[in-house]
């Protein structure tokens, strides 16, 4: 009996697989396409009858483990994409149930034939196959996975192809050196010489994973293929090759880097399409790292210089964006002689995009300058450019600069900061664009370490006040988030005097997110300044809002209490906050009442059991009989959480 049930399941699996293959063939043959349409119906009917038999037999026996597998396989061909997708995602289950041999001989051929499907299904398939090594019987058989992945690596959709390449790269590591040459490398070759550009693009990502582990003749072939693809006449392929150039260079022997890679690099860096040239800049970093210092000047620098002055802003942008990496790769001497002037030019570029990318790198670039001449270079070459950027016409440039400029103070020391940088900080604090001001304020800690924040406080205050009242709530939100940091640096006195009113004003902002952030801000301030400070400055004001005519403000009181009770401690909570909360349980707005219940639940743990029993419990019990169902719900929840029942 046991065998019979499974035989049935098994037969179904078989049937499903073979039916699938046949259908695929039909589909490709074309003329009989109409048949394909009738297929799911008959499949469903078949399944239906089998279901009936199976469920009967399973009932008698109880083991029907293979049956769902048959269903999965059947679902792989369902008309509904979602069902096919679900099934593909369970592919490892199917394979595990089939066993390694049948996975190899039946499932994989079936899947290889499935490659006509929707991209979404193919993507899932490509991903699954990368993890399939054990399911086909371990590294010895891993090459069985190559045919389906090869087909996937040629489809049009980039996402699918990339995933297939990723999986191929993964399983390449599981190939033995022999298998790599017998199975994997021929696949790479086939892809590299495919008719349509998609397969050649995919090939570009596979060279570097097989190169280190094959014989020298095969290595020579691989290099040749890579060379060919670098001068492919489809720009898509050249782009793919250029983006893998650095990676490929890393696995090559140094001699070949010098002889092969450099010429490819030079060619790609002067490609007619800027989209190819800019990728060469990325490769430049890896290549420069590989070469000995003495070769850099002749082999890399001419190309790099040319890229930094490319007529396309995209290429110059890329140079700016990769500047720190380039700087590290070429070393201090070349940096001093070549990169400093190049960097100056990028900071003065005619395109704002390029200036912004360069401005972003100012701090990192200065930090990595050789120590002996760092200060001199910054003062004479970089700072003048930075000064100009402070009054740039483009706000993104200014804002990029503002996010790093404060970092210069640690590099330049106290005196230089006061003399040269401070005026720039102050100018940026008054900038018309809130983002610039915000970026300065958010990095105040760097300056604080060097010169102390007092130097700035006179200008700081108006800037903060203005941001605090900005029309865009996201700006207000951002400045609130810096309040605890500012408070820490400016000290309690300054804070009470100037900023406290702002923090309280945010509590009655029109936007909920601001009120919420303000509440959270109060909590952090109390953590910083202590409970006593809270009792004197914050708590009275917060509690005062409990009588506000606007119910949103009354609720803010509750939210504040939720946030503050823990930081303020039992004493303040019991004596000052609790009475207010309890009183609010009579509020006429239901939202306030159920928030009272929630607050009580929140502050309960801070209170002692006496207060809980004598004060909280009666109120919650009363709320639990409220006419509003939400109030009831939350009161009951509080009662059960606080274990007052």
């Amino acid at each position, binding site marked *: 009996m046991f065998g019979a049930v499974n035989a049935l399941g098994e037969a179904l699996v078989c049937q499903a697989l073979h039916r699938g293959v046949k259908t695929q063939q039909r589909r490709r043959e074309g003329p009989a396409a109409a048949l394909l349409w009738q297929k799911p119906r008959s499949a469903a009917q078949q399944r239906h009858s089998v279901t009936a038999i199976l469920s009967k037999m399973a009932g008698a026996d109880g083991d029907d483990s293979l049956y769902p597998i048959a269903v999965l396989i059947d679902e792989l061909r369902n008309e509904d994409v979602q069902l096919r997708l679900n099934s593909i995602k369970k592919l490892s289950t199917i394979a595990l*149930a089939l066993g390694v041999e049948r996975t190899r001989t039946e499932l994989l051929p079936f899947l290889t034939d499935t490659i006509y499907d929707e991209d979404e299904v193919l993507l899932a398939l490509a991903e699954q196959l990368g*993890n399939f090594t*054990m399911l086909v019987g371990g590294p010895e058989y891993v090459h069985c996975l190559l045919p389906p992945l090869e087909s996937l690596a040629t489809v049009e959709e980039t996402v699918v192809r990339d995933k297939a390449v990723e999986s191929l790269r993964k399983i390449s590591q599981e190939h033995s050196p022999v298998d790599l040459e017998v199975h994997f490398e021929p696949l790479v070759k086939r892809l590299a010489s495919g008719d349509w*550009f998609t397969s050649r693009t995919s090939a570009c990502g596979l060279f570097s994973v097989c190169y280190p582990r094959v014989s020298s003749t095969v290595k020579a072939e691989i290099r040749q293929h890579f060379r060919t693809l670098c001068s492919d006449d489809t720009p898509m392929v050249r782009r793919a090759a250029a983006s893998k150039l650095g990676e490929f260079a890393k696995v090559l022997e140094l001699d070949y880097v010098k002889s092969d890679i450099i010429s490819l690099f030079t060619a790609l860096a002067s490609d*007619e399409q800027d989209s190819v040239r800019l990728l060469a800049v990325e490769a430049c970093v890896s290549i420069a790292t590989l070469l000995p210092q003495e070769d850099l000047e002749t082999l890399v620098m001419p190309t790099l210089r040319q890229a930094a002055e490319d007529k396309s802003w995209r290429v110059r942008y890329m140079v700016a964006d990769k500047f720190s990496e380039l700087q590290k790769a070429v070393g201090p001497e070349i940096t001093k002689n070549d990169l400093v002037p190049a960097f100056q030019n990028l900071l003065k570029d005619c395109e704002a995009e390029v200036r912004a990318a360069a401005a972003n790198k100012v701090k990192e670039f200065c930090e990595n300058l050789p120590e002996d001449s760092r200060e001199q270079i910054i003062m004479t070459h970089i700072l003048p450019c930075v000064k100009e950027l402070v009054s740039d016409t483009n706000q993104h440039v200014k804002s990029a600069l503002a996010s790093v400029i404060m970092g210069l103070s640690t590099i330049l020391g106290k005196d230089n900061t006061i003399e040269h940088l401070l005026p720039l900080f102050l100018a940026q604090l008054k900038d018309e664009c809130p983002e610039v001001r915000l970026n300065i304020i958010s990095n105040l800690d760097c300056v604080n370490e060097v010169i102390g924040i007092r130097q700035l406080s006179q200008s700081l205050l108006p800037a903060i006040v203005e941001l605090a009242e900005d029309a865009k709530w996201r700006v207000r939100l951002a400045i609130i988030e810096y309040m605890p940091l500012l408070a820490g640096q400016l000290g309690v006195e300054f804070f009470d005097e100037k900023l406290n009113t702002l923090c309280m004003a945010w509590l009655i902002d029109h936007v909920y997110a601001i009120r919420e952030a303000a509440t959270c801000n109060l909590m952090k301030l109390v953590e910083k300044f202590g409970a006593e400070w809270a009792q004197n400055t914050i708590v009275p004001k917060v509690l005062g809002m409990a009588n506000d005519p606007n119910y949103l403000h009354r609720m803010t009181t509750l939210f504040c209490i939720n946030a503050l009770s823990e930081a303020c401690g039992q004493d303040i909570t019991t004596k000052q906050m609790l009475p207010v909360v309890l009183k609010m349980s009579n509020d006429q707005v239901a939202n306030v009442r159920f928030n009272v219940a929630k607050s009580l639940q929140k502050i309960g743990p801070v209170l002692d059991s006496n207060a809980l029993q004598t004060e909280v419990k009666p109120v919650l019990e009363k709320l639990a009989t409220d006419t509003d169902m939400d109030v009831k719900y939350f009161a009951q929840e509080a009662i059960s959480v606080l274990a007052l029942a």
Partner: protein
Amino acid sequence: MSAISASEKVDGFTRKSMRKAQKQRKSQGSSQYRTQSAPVELSPLPQLKDAPSTEQQELFTQKLQQCCMLFDFLDSVTDLKSKEIKRATLNELVDYVSTNRGVLVETAYPEITDMICTNIFRTLPPSENPDFDPEEDEPTLEASWPHIQLVYEFLLRFLENPDFQPSIAKRYIDQKFVLQLLELFDSEDPRERDFLKTILHRIYGKFLGLRAFIRKQINNIFLRFIYETEHFNGVAELLEILGSIINGFALPLKAEHKQFLMKVLIPLHTAKALSLFHAQLAYCVVQFLEKDPTLTEPVIRGLLKFWPKTCSQKEVMFLGEIEEILDVIEPTQFKKIQEPLFKQISKCVANPHFQVAERALYFWNNEYILSLIEENIDKILPIMFGSLYRISKEHWNPTIVALVYNVLKTLMEMNCTLFDELTSSYKADRQREKKKEQERDELWKQLEELRLSNPTLVQNNCHGLPKNNNDLNLMFPIVLHLDKLNSYLKMSIF
């Protein structure tokens, strides 16, 4: 700081239209990398028409060279005088090549192309507005248009001059020239793209040797647009040119052209900004089908594959294109594709978005489509019936319900008996479907249980395959267990 209105303070999101209104029509300069030193002031040359004919050629050359000077148009106050001189000179040059005969001597070609290249070929500047929505936003206009326009005008007149000799010009108007020209199609300025369109079309017409190259490069631009950047401003213009190119293809179509249709034009339908070039795209597709009707099946299957799943606007466009295709379809081709196609149409008819439903139902107003449906009513009615019947009772939009009634009536008149059969079996069919659905749920549940009862499988599905040997040991028991099952099976009836 400006006063902030209360409403603005509330959400901070001013309505898009309001923000738009505040913005002025912006213009931007070309991204010339200014290696060129500051422009030298131009001094006016004598008029060409006043010069004696012996000196005209020399003067023409001088004027062309003068026009190679570039000016900064973002700065509206500098070089005013020189800018005006260049403008006047360009005007004169345009006039000169369009009205005079015999001015295009061989030596003039390099000078002419040099002037054109210097002026128009430039790296387009970064878009001011990174999330530029071509449907909503005003395009950023080219600041140096006062000059560039005249240069384009000049190029066009040059190409159209009766004395123009492609055999000489091909030395200058070569692949590199075309490539740079194609890159300019990404310009945000519609005026520029319009000129480029006409110019490229002329070049395609006059330079036979460049045709294949132009087609291939357009191919590359489209593929990059589809699979890499999703951004290119000139797709519509390029498609317009292709429309007329396809029109001129010889029969039978070459494999290259068919590949272009299936691998480029059909995937172009997946673009997010389809609405910007759909009309041109559909025109190209229909052109292909008129040339070679046997392409109908793969094309429609391709469209069905990329049928929009969430974007109703695009779905309406797809339906429009399908109708255009059906307008020219041959009845034999229709038979091949009717079932998958009408399955999709039946889904569209039942779409809760009334515009989609409405667009699909409009098919029944088309006489030719009606005749095709009538011919194949036995196949189509069973597909359509379920959706139509359901929608006639359920759709929220009364217009749709009314349309559906009309369609049902038309279909009933086509085959009354079948209609009655379907009506009477409707309920049973629905129940059968429901049951099937339940069964499927049941099976998935069983599968979940199977996985839950087997921790290895669960682990396997959550984290991919175990990598090290310890995990492997965990996995083997189940494999062995199933292997044992397999050996049972081999002995059994199967």
